[in-house]
């Protein structure tokens, strides 16, 4: 079984010094202009344990800052190299365009969370109020109190977007004011972080989480796998 970690500009790098999953050696399959980094395994696909996840990530990062890299989703396997090569050749235009898009850039993840101030006493529901109504009133009150922080998070996003080459906001879950992934040129990472720090310090009602730099997981091409292989 062939387990794939990443795609990169060919020719592939020297892969000594980094091991793959289950300590298997890494190899590269060239399908010009793209190369795929993989390892061989006897058994089924690996489980997404923390160790395996970090191993996958370490391989992607080991491909280095000097070439464009597209991380492949965890758990991607092929029965043999012929099958992998066929996919790479079939979709080479998508893959090349994808590599060009992320060249020289890293991904930074940003979450802005609202740390709600204590509930004012006078917003407690009147005795006898229906629980559903009380809940909705409480949510409404919370939403009103978070509005200024929400507006500041939008302002922050606009500032970050101006530094980034691209961004995506994959749905703000729960009480997050902002959940975004930003594709940032390597030279602009410092400026990006400084703007983020400024907001985080200025506003005690928000907590800013910034992670990265990551490989550009959110900025990969969507391969049209449903189409015939020889299209």
């Amino acid at each position, binding site marked *: 079984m062939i387990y794939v970690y990443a795609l990169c500009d060919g020719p592939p790098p020297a892969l000594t010094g980094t091991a793959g999953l289950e300590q298997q050696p890494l190899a590269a399959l060239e399908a010009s202009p793209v190369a795929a980094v993989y390892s061989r395994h006897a058994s089924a*696909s690996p489980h997404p344990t923390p160790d395996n996840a970090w191993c996958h990530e370490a391989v992607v990062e080991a491909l280095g800052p000097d070439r464009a890299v597209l991380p492949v989703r965890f758990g*991607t396997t092929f029965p043999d190299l012929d099958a992998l090569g066929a996919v790479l050749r079939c979709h080479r235009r998508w893959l090349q365009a994808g590599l060009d898009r992320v060249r020289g850039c890293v991904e930074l993840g940003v979450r802005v969370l609202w740390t709600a101030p204590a509930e004012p006493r006078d917003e407690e529901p009147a005795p006898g109020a229906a629980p559903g109504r009380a809940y909705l009133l409480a949510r409404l009150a919370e939403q009103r109190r978070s509005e200024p922080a929400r507006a500041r998070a939008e302002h922050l996003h606009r500032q970050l977007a101006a530094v980034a080459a691209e961004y995506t906001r994959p749905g703000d879950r729960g009480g997050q004011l902002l959940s975004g992934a930003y594709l940032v040129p390597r030279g602009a990472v410092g400026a990006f972080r400084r703007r983020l720090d400024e907001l985080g310090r200025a506003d005690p009602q928000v907590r800013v989480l910034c992670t990265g730099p990551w490989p550009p997981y959110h900025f990969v091409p969507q391969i049209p796998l449903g189409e015939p292989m020889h299209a």
Partner: protein
Amino acid sequence: MNDLGPPDVSLLELLDRLLDKGVVLSGDITLAVADVDLVYLGLRVLLASVETACGPPAGVVLPAPGEVRG
């Protein structure tokens, strides 16, 4: 999942990317749906620790308590 320091934040952010983003090259990604749900559950626990209680995140199906493994 109760003691979430900075290393766990990084792990959750990593899993959020590895399991849900990245190039899809084949239809043969053999990953149990329950594993992916657990990642989102972890992320929600993390976020809930700094916010007031709120409903389940939109569009995310969480496993019933009895289904959570590990």
